[in-house]
């Protein structure tokens, strides 16, 4: 069994896996909260899926609005960088 190239998802697939609807994902994308892979024709990787799950968790469970989301995602990234 040969390992394939890295996993990439279309918008529809990432919506299906995450349970987040297409319009919401596009909105997050427009806001710069998640980014597709460069030169991929709007395809996403596991990192984007992970960010999407984080966003949904912060929004649904913690009730964070979009301004708060941006701040918290930055802070979570900062924490990860410091722990590396």
């Amino acid at each position: 069994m040969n390992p394939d190239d890295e996993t990439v998802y279309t918008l529809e697939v990432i919506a299906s896996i995450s349970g987040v609807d297409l319009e919401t994902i596009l909105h997050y994308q427009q806001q710069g909260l998640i980014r597709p892979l460069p030169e991929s024709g709007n395809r996403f990787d596991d990192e984007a899926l992970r960010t999407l799950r984080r966003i949904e968790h912060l929004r649904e469970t913690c009730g964070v609005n979009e301004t708060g989301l941006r701040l918290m995602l930055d802070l979570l990234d900062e924490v990860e960088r410091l722990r590396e």
Partner: protein
Amino acid sequence: MSVEFKDYYAILGVPRDATADDIKKAFRKLARKHHPDVAKDKKTAEEKFKEINEAYEVLGDPEKRGKYDRLGMDWQHEGAAPPPGRGAAAHEFNFGGTGFSDFFEQYFSGASRYGFPGGMQGGAQARTGHFRGNDIEGDILVTLEEAMHGALRPVSLQMTDPQTGRAQTHTFHVRIPPGVTNGKRIRIPGQGEPGIGGGEAGDLYLRVRHAAHPDFTTQGADVFHELDIAPWEAVLGADISVPTLDGAVKLRIPPGSENGQQLRVRGRGLPMGKSGGRGDFHVVLTVQTPAHTTDEERTLWEKLRSVSRFNPRTQP
């Protein structure tokens, strides 16, 4: 969970006050000796190589080394500080096969979880009573050879359910895609914490850590190699065979090369996704001077000194 303390200084065979350079040299020497590609006993070498890598991952990083030195002093004391990111865990978990020891996993990896049951798609889940399990995150040590060609790695995840107290081990294979870069996360669906009320399990995210290599470092898909050259090779130029991740290449060192100068071999780095493209291979020249000289060599250097008009302190 009890874990065995790892004496990283003993593993690299360096004293506790070793300089960063001593640590780097010790690592390179041991990594060359135990590299799975060159050692005769591959299984033993692989284990040893991972151990050396882990020690260098910590001692080769000033921040991690400082933390390790502090931790080392407190190790035998009861009530040592709890490892980061494991505070209010619903489940205890423990990785196997990631290339890092339990000790490293607990104290130096980014292993963590986030979210609460019901956190994802909360509204819908709360209505149905089905809650998706938490995602779990950890690190996986990937050799540059694995990053070059791709690999399948068996990984096990042991979780203890706090309600039943029973430990369950899941073993599965993780696909390392060719060209995977340092820091990239690989998602393994359904290998996170179990869901509640029939909800689906969370996912496992493993962050790729390139194993330190005795000859190469990486930056994205680009691979770097430090090449030691003699002063006359820098001045006169030379043709030198240089190792890459997929065989040696002949490299022409141009006359008048300088210390630290970089030469690029296009397309001999790591693969880049489905495009079929590859990163570049960069050779960083390091001019070495001989530590000892024979009488004859000394005479020749002295002759060079007397005839040369080169003065590095008056160059523009």
